[in-house]
């Protein structure tokens, strides 16, 4: 059978030519002129995600998920596997890059009003991708089985345990016992390499499918877009193929190169294996600092209920509001000047998040700022 015959045979069974033609037609549609180089940001996130998947594959090939061998296998990856140190460093730094790019992407989408009708589900899928990335960050953090990771995971699961309603059951399910141990490591490993990547892939596929199907948002209000149609709002704009795709690819190339550079210049050094005492000054990654700091503010009891459980309602509601933002921010306007209220609310939330992050970063620390050594208490107040 010739090559062509094989493709024909597959087409009869799969109908791939029709699907390709539909996708090509969708990708050839002009996009709103304002799209510009903004797509490079999404491309950068995709590029970093691809590098995370690739480095994750290499690491998984050498990693052994058991308390006895996890730490040594990571040391072996770092010191004996060819370029293992770089893969390890890229994979760790990639988390930070991915969270940062996803947050920037969310900011860009919010500012341009692109989350509004009919692209609400694109936002929801994107937000869920970010949550999957955060889940990957948390589960991946434990895998090297360092003392710091062991204790921060214990703390995190403690917070899960005090979450309202399903908290204790969820914590037990994740931990696989009363303490962080071999079962926790197995569970986090399977979440990190199978469950969460599959979930992320599905959500990302949905997100990209929706981007392709609905096109990029034009600058006109949502109701006007609905009335005139996407094509009419996008006259004279560049199409995904080839221009926008090339811009996204350029963004991906720069992001990958930047990530490789940071990873090569600042590879993670050795850290003590789990089994030591709780390290002093334990604090989470920068993107969880606000949550970390907020939970410190919780009183012991609120209206007779455990304080932390009540306090957790605030971030839980904030997270739900973030994922469902398009259904809360429903005005058709896309120009910022016409969206003062929602801008003010979101700006206040971002400010609160930023302030808590800064307080969390300086709390219980002595820092040299503006030529003076300043000490901060656990609430981030100067002492």
């Amino acid at each position, binding site marked *: 059978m010739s090559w062509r015959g094989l493709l024909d045979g597959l087409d009869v069974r799969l109908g791939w030519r029709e699907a390709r033609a539909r996708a090509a037609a969708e990708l050839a549609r002009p996009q709103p002129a304002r799209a510009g180089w903004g797509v490079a940001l999404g491309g950068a996130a995709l590029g970093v995600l691809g590098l995370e998947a690739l480095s994750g594959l290499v690491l998984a090939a050498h990693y052994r998920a058991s308390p006895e061998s996890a730490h040594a296998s990571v040391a072996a990856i*770092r*010191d004996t596997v060819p370029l293992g140190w770089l893969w390890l460093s890229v994979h760790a730094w990639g988390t930070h890059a991915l969270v940062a790019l996803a947050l920037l992407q969310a900011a860009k989408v919010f500012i341009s009003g692109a989350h509004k009708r009919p692209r609400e589900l694109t936002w929801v899928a994107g937000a869920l991708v970010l949550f999957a990335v955060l889940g990957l960050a948390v589960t991946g953090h434990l895998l090297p089985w360092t003392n710091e990771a062991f204790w921060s995971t214990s703390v995190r699961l403690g917070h899960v345990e005090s979450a309202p309603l399903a908290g204790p059951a969820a914590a037990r399910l994740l931990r696989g016992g009363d303490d962080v141990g071999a079962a926790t490591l197995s569970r986090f490993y399977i979440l990190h390499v199978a469950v969460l990547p599959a979930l992320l892939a599905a959500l990302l596929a949905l997100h990209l499918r929706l981007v392709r199907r609905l096109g990029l948002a034009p600058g006109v209000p949502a109701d006007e877009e609905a009335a005139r149609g996407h094509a009419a709002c996008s006259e004279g704009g*560049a199409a995904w193929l080839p*221009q926008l795709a090339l811009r996204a690819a350029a963004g991906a*190339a720069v992001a990958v190169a930047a990530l490789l550079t940071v990873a090569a*210049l600042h590879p993670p050094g050795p850290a003590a294996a789990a089994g030591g005492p709780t390290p002093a000054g334990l604090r989470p990654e920068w993107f969880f600092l606000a949550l970390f700091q907020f939970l410190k503010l919780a009183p012991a009891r609120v209206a007779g209920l455990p304080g932390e459980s009540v306090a957790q309602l605030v971030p839980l509601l904030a997270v739900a509001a973030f994922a469902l933002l398009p259904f809360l921010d429903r005005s058709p306007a896309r120009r910022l000047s016409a969206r003062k209220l929602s801008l003010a609310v979101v700006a206040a939330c971002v400010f609160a998040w930023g302030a808590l992050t800064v307080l969390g970063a300086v709390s219980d620390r002595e820092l040299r700022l503006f030529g003076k050594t300043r000490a901060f208490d656990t609430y981030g107040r100067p002492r």
Partner: protein
Amino acid sequence: MKRLLLLLAAAAATAEAGTCTDCHPGVEEPVLASAHPQTSCTDCHNGDDTAAEMTDAHATEKKFIGRPKALEWAAMCGDCHREAAQAWTASPHLDALRKGDPAGATCVSCHAAAATPSGHSLADCGDAGAPSARLQVAATCAKCHADGAAMARSGVRADAVELYGKGPHGHNVLEEKAADGPSCVDCHDAHASPRSSDPASAAHPSRQAQTCGRCHGDEKVMKPHGLSHGLVAKYEGSPHARGLDSGAPSCAGCHGPHLVRVPPVTEIVAHCGRCHEGPAREFAAGPHGKAVRTDPQTGEATPMSCEDCHGAHGARRPESPWAARSCGKCHAAGTPALADGERLSSISADTRADLVRLHGLLERARARGHQAGEGCEALAALDGAWQDMSALAHGVSAEAGAMARTAFVRDAKAVEESLGRLVPGPRDLRWLPAMWAFVLAGVVLMWRKSRA
């Protein structure tokens, strides 16, 4: 005068006991002559010494106990002699009594002056004739501790007092009657008398240096005997003192616990060889094992021993380079023997430096989180090879040393490579600018193409 008054008082006190002495003649005299002349009969025997009838005096309602049993003495004496009785209750002597061994010593076994131990003749410790007095202690302990059958029941050696008598400590006390000479109780506490295997014992290996050092570290005590007072301090800085937990010898390990003698030079190699088997074997087989030194003044011929290079109490590895310091004592400069010594000395120094470096490398690999099992095993094998090499060095053959060194260097190289892989040096980052050039060229291309 004072003694007379005391006797009168005692007579007054025992006057009440007149009823007892009616039937127990000959009891009063030793009690009055003992360290406890005021003690009345009922103090130890209970009963009633005022009763007119014998049955009343001995009535069980009056708690009459008759002759105190062995186990009852400590409780009775302990009313006043609290510390001594307390110490005795933790002693192996009490253990023996509890097991029903009649040889278990109780208060009267050591403190009664009479041949038949009895509470009636308790002697004052200050009295030179008392069985617990320094000059009498050995004889008192020997009453049981020289009895082979009794000692066998408790698993205790029966030759201790005999050996003590033959050694300088025994001579000092028993022959010279030295008032400050060491007796049994100087090393084995008089009342607690713990076994020397008990870490609480002053005779336990971990405490021997301290115990012996009480006299042997004191210049005032040692000088009259013409002995050095610095030997214990030297021992305390030795590898033997550091290795006590792993069975290294304490003072008694070389001098014997009771005989306490200086081992004759002809026995030293065999004695050290009990632990240092390889070095002693190679030494005996080598030229030094057959060498005999003649004292130029006395003409006395003595064989060489371990002490010549290592010292006795310091027991140190000679400091590198040791050729001039150790070999040079007997071998003149420029002789082939000294040249061999120099070769061996440098082989030893190089090998030790290699091992220090490799162990450092292993530590660094471990600190980086590597279990390094293979490298660790190979390094343990090298440590073993070094043991063999240092044993071989005692045969003072430079050829054998050089051969062993060649093999060591080959294996050390493999270990260094295997461990070195776990401790990589700085990374090569020359690819970074090339990558950026490539990426930027690609971005420019894509930018141009996306405009078209």
